[in-house]
């Protein structure tokens, strides 16, 4: 290890920064869309029409029982066969949103189940719609109950974006591969980006802790 040398990597500072930004962007897009998918799926499983429950269950099982790398390949390589041609970054966003959505749906479903039936009833008794009961009465405390699990899932998603490199979406891990092919400094490069991932995760943990304190301010029993 006497010849560790990070200096050649400095030339690629801009590429790394762009990779970091793309990784963040990819994570945020996938988590945002995935969260909406997840809430919709969990709501359907809890009280949606029976006809919709089976496709939703099918989607969740399909995603949770296949490797995410295959999900990305399917969106990127198989969709074009049906006339849907997507740039790598878009394909990765869609695939990762579907991936995150399936896991988050299960988490949110358990959150919804943690809200007592009497709360739902109290909402209905006030003469507001079922959708309003869901959004205003059930969802906020449900999200609080599963907040730690959903943030862990978010971290897994952040780390998981690295597989988007396999379809050449230009995120951090892809950048590492490009720089490696030019500098042959494998160890330095992967040590560096491992460090970057650690920093990103820690930054998000700090952010989520603050967000949680801000969003869930009501006192609870025990």
């Amino acid at each position, binding site marked *: 290890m006497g010849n560790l040398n990070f200096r050649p990597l400095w030339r690629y500072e801009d590429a790394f920064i762009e990779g970091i930004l793309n990784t963040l962007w990819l994570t945020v897009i996938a988590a945002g869309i995935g969260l909406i998918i997840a809430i919709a799926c969990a709501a359907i499983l809890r009280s949606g029409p029976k006809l919709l429950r089976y496709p939703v269950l099918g989607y969740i099982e399909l995603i949770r029982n296949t490797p995410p790398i295959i999900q990305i390949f399917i969106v990127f390589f198989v969709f074009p066969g049906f006339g849907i041609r997507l740039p790598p970054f878009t394909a990765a966003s869609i695939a990762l949103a579907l991936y995150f959505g399936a896991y988050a749906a299960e988490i949110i479903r358990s959150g919804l189940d943690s809200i007592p039936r009497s709360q739902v009833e109290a*909402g209905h008794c006030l003469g507001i719609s079922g959708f309003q009961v869901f959004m205003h009465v059930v969802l906020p405390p449900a999200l609080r109950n599963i907040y730690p699990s959903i943030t862990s899932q978010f971290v897994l998603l952040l780390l998981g974006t690295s597989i988007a490199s396999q379809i050449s979406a230009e995120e951090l891990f892809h950048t590492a591969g490009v720089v490696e092919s030019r500098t042959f400094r494998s160890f330095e490069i992967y040590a560096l980006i491992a460090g970057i991932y650690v920093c990103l995760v820690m930054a998000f943990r700090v952010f989520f802790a603050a967000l949680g304190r801000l969003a869930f301010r*009501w006192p609870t029993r025990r």
Partner: protein
Amino acid sequence: MALVEINNVHKSFGAVEVLKDVSLSVEEGEIVTIIGRSGSGKSTLLRCINALEPINSGRITIEGQQVAAGMRNLKELRQRVGIVFQAFNLFPHLKVERNITLAPTLTGRVSKREARALALECLTKVGLAEKIDAFPEQLSGGQQQRVAIARCLAMRPHLMLFDEVTSALDPELVGEVLKVMEDMARQGMTMILVTHEMNFARNVASKIVFMHQGRVWEEGPPSKLFTNPQTPELKAFIGSTRHN
């Protein structure tokens, strides 16, 4: 026409018939108190009145409108019928103000700007104006129950249902809730309430309904029912409550 008409209602859970041919009418301004042993169907009857439970046969009408679980105007109906439960069921994540104004704002009765004034008005009626910015968890049981009543009042209901609203409270907190209900009664609110507070029933009710095994066993004004029960079941029930 009576405000509430209940005609020959039957209600079963599976094979168990819980309400058997129940009929009852409640005039505007009347205070009807339902008493009876545990399991006699008191809560179920209240829940049928605002369609929380579907009935198997018979007919319930409120202000001339027939109540049914899947009815089109169910939301409007429930806006006219307030219900308060034993367990308060306040929304823990919302401050007292928002607990009260949630339904009025979501249904477009008041604007966001008028909402706080409405909350304050309803809280004043239950003597809790100073708790407008508290969370439910920061209140005593009696205070939570009064907020639950204020939450109903904010919808300006024509009818209030109370299901053993003091049963979960420590004895020293029962009085403050009963007082609020007395005030409402005095102001002419039509009320149907299930209670084990026999003194309250005697003093406030215009009509007592004794339920037994899913039937309306006896009904009449409190003076008549308590002093001169006609059935051995009611006699036994009154005897069993006298000592507490």
